[in-house]
């Protein structure tokens, strides 16, 4: 800045300022913009489902669900099944000790 003006002169340079006016047809431009910004249901839906946060959340949900089912299946793949009881029930053994002689009365 050149030393041509003193500071007071600069501070007072806005005295007598006139209001600035916008370009003509402001209302038409505003209406055009409002129409442009009006969104259809499809556009809103598309914008919503393509949100990175939503896509990430859905992805995490499905990965979590898959992990749960995989872990659950692995835990249940080799179950220790006690088959003796159903087998015993099926053959209905009467004597328990083979060394024990049955009491045979004359």
């Amino acid at each position, binding site marked *: 800045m050149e030393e041509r003006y003193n500071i007071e002169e600069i501070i007072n340079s806005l005295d007598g300022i006139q209001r600035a006016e*916008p370009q003509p047809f402001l209302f038409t431009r505003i209406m055009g913009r409002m129409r442009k910004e009006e969104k259809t249901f499809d556009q809103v839906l598309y914008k919503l489902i393509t949100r990175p946060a939503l896509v990430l959340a859905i992805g995490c949900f499905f990965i979590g669900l898959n992990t749960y089912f995989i872990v659950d299946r692995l835990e249940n793949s080799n179950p220790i099944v006690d088959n003796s009881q159903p087998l015993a029930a099926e053959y209905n053994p009467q004597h328990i000790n083979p060394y024990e002689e049955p009491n045979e009365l004359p």
Partner: protein
Amino acid sequence: MTEQELIKGLREGDHHAFKKLVETKQSLVFNTVLGLLQNNEDAEDVTQDVFIKVFESIHQFKGESALSTWIYRVGVTTALEFIRRKKRKKRFGFLSPILGDDNEPTLELSDFHHPGIELDNKEKAAILFKAIQQLPENHKVAFILNKVEGLSYQEVAEIMKTSLSAVESLLHRAKTNLKEILKNFNNLTQ
């Protein structure tokens, strides 16, 4: 159309009322926003934003102040948001916090020539506008509303939702700050 009729029309979504509002308040909004942004294209865009906001949120206007006061408030808030957004963009875009202190006034400012300034004062006003950009937000708002928009201290106080004495103090400090900034401009360019 009285102000009450205008407000009623806006609340009903009447486009004729909206057109009337734009026609009567456009220079008020544009001039204030231009003073704060110091860029014609940005001011045109933000002026449109302001009117859309006013139309869409007229139900929030409770009539506690004049409609103009409320519109000024929307205008100032929208312009300040725009400036903050632009600063954020600039900061992250060019990594300026790494290169220098963010509070340090930047001198990479373009010359702004307000169209309402008399020819004799154009150069001095351009220097002043450059200095105004470096004021804190509330100083800048008070100074623009008082000096560029020509509002009284009372009107500025109503727009800024503060007391008359607070506005007097703000403007006094704004002028003191401006003098300091202008002095530094002198030192830097000598």
